[in-house]
């Protein structure tokens, strides 16, 4: 749940990047951090293991400017993707306003994407939120691997697997090159801000 400070006119919005292990959640945030350095006042916080895997979460706050006189502070989080860390994933989801589900487009990751999305659904239910109501954007990451001869799933298959019931906006992307990283972020910010506005009216 976003927090709105009427005194200082600040709205804090929490957006979480969710997805299976090694799908590119942290890479998304690193790209945003590099590209929009000017808007980002603080350092990106990463809690990771020695093997460079996310242990708890990554955190990246930035200012989006003003809407109707209110300063919008966007706070991006990632969850740890590894299967064993579900308790931590749940903690990060607390109070979430919008979610980017990052799917790994590599053919061999197909079942992991589906399992992770199902778990997101369950985890949201434990906070009495529904995956069908919360602002959500899907990102089919790693499409650049096609050029390197690595088999990737066609978007039609990913759509059928993950988005046939949700019917939310989706982007093919490559977090490592930055392709559609900003487009994904803009989409989730706009859906989330609209949803917060609706709740307030």
């Amino acid at each position, binding site marked *: *749940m*976003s*927090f*709105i*400070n*009427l*005194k200082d006119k600040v709205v*804090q919005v*929490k957006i979480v990047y969710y997805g299976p292990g090694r799908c590119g959640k942290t890479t998304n945030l690193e790209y945003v951090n590099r590209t929009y350095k000017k808007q980002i006042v*603080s*350092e990106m*916080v990463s*809690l990771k293991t020695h093997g460079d895997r996310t242990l*708890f*979460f990554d*955190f990246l*706050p930035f200012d989006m400017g003003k809407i109707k006189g209110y300063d919008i*502070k966007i*706070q991006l*989080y990632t969850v740890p993707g590894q299967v064993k860390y579900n*308790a*931590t994933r749940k*903690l*990060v989801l*607390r*109070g*979430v306003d919008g979610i980017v589900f990052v799917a790994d487009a590599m053919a061999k990751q197909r079942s992991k994407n589906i399992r992770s999305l199902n778990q997101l659904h369950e985890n949201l239910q434990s906070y009495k939120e529904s995956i069908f109501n919360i602002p959500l954007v899907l990102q089919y990451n790693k499409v650049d691997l096609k050029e390197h001869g690595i088999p990737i799933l066609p978007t039609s298959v990913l759509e059928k697997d993950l988005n046939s019931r949700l019917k939310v906006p989706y982007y093919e992307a490559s977090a490592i090159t930055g392709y559609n990283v900003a487009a994904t972020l803009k989409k989730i910010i706009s859906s989330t801000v609209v949803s917060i506005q609706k709740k307030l009216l």
Partner: protein
Amino acid sequence: MNYGIVSQEQLEQIDTILSDKLIKLGVDCVIIIDMAGNIITARDNGESKYDVYSFAALAAGNFATVDAMAKLVGEQEFSLLFHKGQESNIHFSKIDDELLLISMFGREISLGFLRLNVVDVIEKIRKVWGSK
């Protein structure tokens, strides 16, 4: 209690309580956050330069982790946490299920004295929340 939006009046009252009871005492910085990592309000002595937004995110994560550990050992909760350093210390205390009060202070204040004041502050803040 709807903690999502707080009236300007409530925030001003809370800020006054924090300034009068903790900052004047010598506490460097006081932050109230919710369990999602949002900052409700932050007060400091004008000298400390903490990145309060990152701090709030980490503190909420930290508290949530300790809470989960409490459940594992059969406790309802560990309602306060304290980290001691060479020059600065951090004290966390739960206001209610959604809110956390964090005080950062140096060597010149004793923990016991701070805790007495924190208890008093929390009681006053609860009254302000309840007044809505």
